[in-house]
């Protein structure tokens, strides 16, 4: 059962039957072709022997446990390391129990304590699971709407929620996608300087004054922006255009020099 990725919901025809009957078959008596985890196996052994979980005969349980481990067919082999880890813990506890002691151990000194605590906790989680399964069985048959019904007039709500995981996942997928893309060479289009120069002069004539930064940001590629930059430098150098920055960090305005005397005042 634990090997099956998904379990079928009970047949729809059974919707009226309390799903607890189904869930009960999840209990220990009928179950388990394969033990998914070591705690699962331990609990099974304890129940089979009708042992009090708080007073586990470690030697006997360890023997049984190792027996299952040897057979391998009954445990989830993907989890072998975890089964072996608990086996080591059992053997360690057993050795601790065998140490000669002068006085009886207080309860909190019981070497089994650490294992008992885990088993008790795990047993509770398993029991909670059977209760939660009952709820799940009822809920998955009921359908909620994942849209908003039409209102009078327009409705433009997008049903997307943001979560940290969504965000991180989105970034991760994007980077993966990019990794794949990077194997492909992306070539920007060549921009001949003469063409750009003409384009720039035309623009200056049309607009009279150009915002330097705005003009740069309008370029699709860095290459194209650089070409424009050289064009402007060239135009300023050859005194065809004037570039003025009123204050540090402010935008630079560019215009064509029409009347050399008037523009000189700006410089």
């Amino acid at each position, binding site marked *: 059962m634990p090997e099956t990725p*998904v379990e079928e919901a009970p047949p729809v025809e059974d919707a009226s039957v309390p799903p607890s009957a189904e869930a009960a078959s999840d209990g220990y008596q009928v179950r388990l072709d394969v033990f998914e985890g070591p705690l699962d196996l331990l609990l099974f052994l304890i129940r089979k022997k009708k042992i009090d979980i708080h007073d586990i005969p470690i030697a006997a349980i360890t023997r049984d446990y190792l027996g299952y481990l040897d057979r391998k067919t009954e445990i989830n082999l993907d989890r072998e390391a975890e089964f072996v880890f608990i086996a080591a813990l059992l053997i360690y506890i057993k050795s601790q129990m065998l140490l000669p002691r002068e006085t009886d151990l207080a309860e909190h000194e019981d070497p089994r304590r650490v294992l008992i605590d885990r088993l008790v906790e795990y047993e509770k989680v398993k029991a909670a699971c059977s209760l*939660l399964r009952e709820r799940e069985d009822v809920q998955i048959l009921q*359908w909620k709407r994942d849209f908003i019904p039409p209102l009078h007039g327009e409705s433009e709500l997008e049903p997307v929620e943001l979560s940290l995981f969504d965000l991180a996942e989105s970034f991760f997928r994007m980077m993966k996608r990019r990794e794949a893309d990077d194997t492909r060479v992306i070539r920007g289009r060549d921009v001949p300087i003469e063409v750009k120069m003409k384009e720039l002069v035309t623009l200056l004539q049309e607009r009279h004054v150009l915002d330097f930064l705005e003009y740069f940001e309008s370029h699709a590629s860095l290459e194209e922006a650089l070409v424009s930059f050289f064009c402007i430098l060239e135009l300023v150098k050859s005194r065809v255009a004037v570039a003025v920055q009123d204050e540090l960090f402010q935008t630079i305005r560019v215009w064509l020099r029409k009347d050399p005397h008037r523009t000189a005042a700006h410089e």
Partner: protein
Amino acid sequence: MNNSLKALIESLIFVSQEPVTLAQLGTIVEGVEAAEIEAAIEDLIREYEAEGRGIHIIRAGGGWLYSTKPAHDREVRRLLQIERKNRLSSAGLETLAAIAYRQPVTQSEVSAIRGVDSTGALKTLLEKKLIKIVGRKKAPGNPLVYRTSDEFLLYLGLDSLDGLPSEAEIAKILEEEKAVEAEP
């Protein structure tokens, strides 16, 4: 019963995709006592639970919302052309239960409770949005901390985390299982 109040509440619960809370209703239906609103909802719930109705109002995630009744699952799926919803695997449910009861928890805490590495199960639960990452623990390695989500409450039809099976209920189940065990 105030019929127009009931009608208004019906439309509000109906139109919402998420459970509508009493607080939300209170903000919108001004000047009406919470008790009166609740009485109207109770009335609505009763009406929908009657025979011959295909949808009903359920309480989950701290509010009320509509859903179809379980009896029509097969036909609903045929109309929407979707497969039967799969139950969670036992590994997934176990991981979810461990998180629900011990939250906020880290991956290694969940794995310790289950005795097996739970990274894969956590991933699937995250994808299903039944759990969420809520931050990091101030501990070596600053591991991510997980909690159950609002979708988790809706998924199991729980009003809040207080609705999780109690210690007493769990103890009762354990007793029953042991009793069955003891029989020949």
